[in-house]
């Protein structure tokens, strides 16, 4: 068996070796901290799981068809929340995207501030934004729209700024050399290059927002999430089964439609 031998391994410098050891120790420390710190009552969790298993899992697979109307209505509300939110974000992200793009302004300060605003927005989970907006406008679907709109702006703005940074600047420079003004450069040099990708990203974000808006109801911001939390509190797992089914179907259908549209655009 051992008649062949592998080629000799490349020699590593002492610096690389110590670096490797340091990284390894850091990772080990993180894991030690994790496993010493976490307190999970494994025994109780397992016991609960065995007791509850037959009360939860089989019911999930026997959806309560009588709730179909209500689920469909709430699912429609979820779609409207996601649509209105994504639409607002797609518009709001345009100025921010241009602000954060390196090739659109010579001032580094402006670009950096744009990037900073966008990453600050992205650090907020959607549902935390929803909590803030529920307090602001009351527990209704519009709070969800605002949360989705602000939450999506962070990611869309970043993607937009990357699109703007990747455009062919020679076209814009040629127009500038021919005496075009700023507005003309924007409309005829920049816009035709970015519109398909902007649209494609906005549609992609709509896909994500469908998922995001389906949970906002947990904090009172409308949509199917409202039913999820009621069904869980009442231990109505048959209804939960139907809700899950509705989410899976709607998300799958919208994903495949939007993937098809995006393939056409770009």
């Amino acid at each position, binding site marked *: 068996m051992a008649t062949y031998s592998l080629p000799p391994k490349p020699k590593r410098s002492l610096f690389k070796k110590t670096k490797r050891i340091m990284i390894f120790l850091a990772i080990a420390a993180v894991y030690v901290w994790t496993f010493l710190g976490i307190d999970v009552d494994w025994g109780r969790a397992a016991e609960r799981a065995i007791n509850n298993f037959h009360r939860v899992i089989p019911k999930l697979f026997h959806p309560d068809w009588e709730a179909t109307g209500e689920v469909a209505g709430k699912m429609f509300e979820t779609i409207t929340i996601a649509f209105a939110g994504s639409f607002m974000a797609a518009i709001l992200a345009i100025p921010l995207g241009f602000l954060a793009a390196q090739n659109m302004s010579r001032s580094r300060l402006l670009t950096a501030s744009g990037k900073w605003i966008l990453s600050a927005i992205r650090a907020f989970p959607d549902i935390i934004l929803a909590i803030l907006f529920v307090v602001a406008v009351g527990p209704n679907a519009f709070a969800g*729209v605002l949360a989705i709109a602000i939450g999506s702006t962070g990611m869309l703005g970043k993607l937009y700024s990357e699109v703007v940074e990747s455009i062919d600047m020679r076209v814009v420079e040629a127009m500038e050399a021919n005496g075009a003004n700023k507005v003309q450069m924007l409309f005829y040099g920049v816009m035709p290059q970015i519109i398909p990708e902007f649209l494609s990203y906005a549609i992609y974000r709509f896909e994500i927002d469908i998922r995001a808006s389906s949970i906002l109801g*947990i904090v009172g911001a409308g949509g199917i999430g409202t039913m*999820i939390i009621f069904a869980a509190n009442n231990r109505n797992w048959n209804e939960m089964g139907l809700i899950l089914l509705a989410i899976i179907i709607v998300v799958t259908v919208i994903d495949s439609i939007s993937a098809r549209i995006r393939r056409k655009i770009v």
Partner: protein
Amino acid sequence: MNNQTNSTSSQMTPPLYPAKTKAQVTLIFFIVIGFYLFSMVWTQRQMVGGFTDALGNMGVVINKFFPPNLSVIPAVWDPMAQTIQMAIIATTVAAILTVPLALLSAQNIATFKPIYITTRTFLNILRTIPDLVLAVVFVGLFGIGLFPGIIALIIFSLGILAKLISETIESVDMNPLEAMRASGGNVFQVIYYGLVPQVLPQFASFVLYVFEINIRASVVLGLVGAGGIGLVLDQQLGFYNYPNVMAIIILIFIVVLIIEYISNKLREALI
């Protein structure tokens, strides 16, 4: 936006696009605007006061949240640490479990089609369910605590991770693998010596990316009873103690930013 540029350009130059395309784009444009306006009306139908009242309300609300009561931060340090630990454990377990799933859902490794299609469909369905919904179901199954949160995160990140990694596997250079197979390597040898070196940097990078997602997801899991800082947040919301809520939100914000920064630097170093 598209048809605006078209109409202005048509005054000076011959039209760039045929009339049919223009009509189509205009139609789609109006459908989108129409559905947007409908959505705005539909989502505001249960709102008391309407849009202008809401804007005035925001000012009042901002006053309620400020100034944040930063003195609670030492008290919530423990749940915050648990949240991070939850994300670490979930990411680790998911990274291990994803290996067989990713191999089975990569077209160039799982050459037996039914297996490939079943795992693909399974992962696609898994990815459609939002993390918090999984957490709700697991809290019902395991009771309130960290454990259901960890399980929800594992399942949720498994869907994303397996998809990303199977796509990486599909894009590798198959020539060394074929050479190994031709010179008599068995399946495991081919995977270990041919595939792993090509995929490993991407794998590490995706695991870190999913870790970032998990951190962001884990801070809110407590809202449905799945442990961590979200549980405290939910309690304080229940007491309408907004200065405390704001302090917790600020803490979450800072922790997420720091972890994202570290993970970004690591990923840049990896690839």
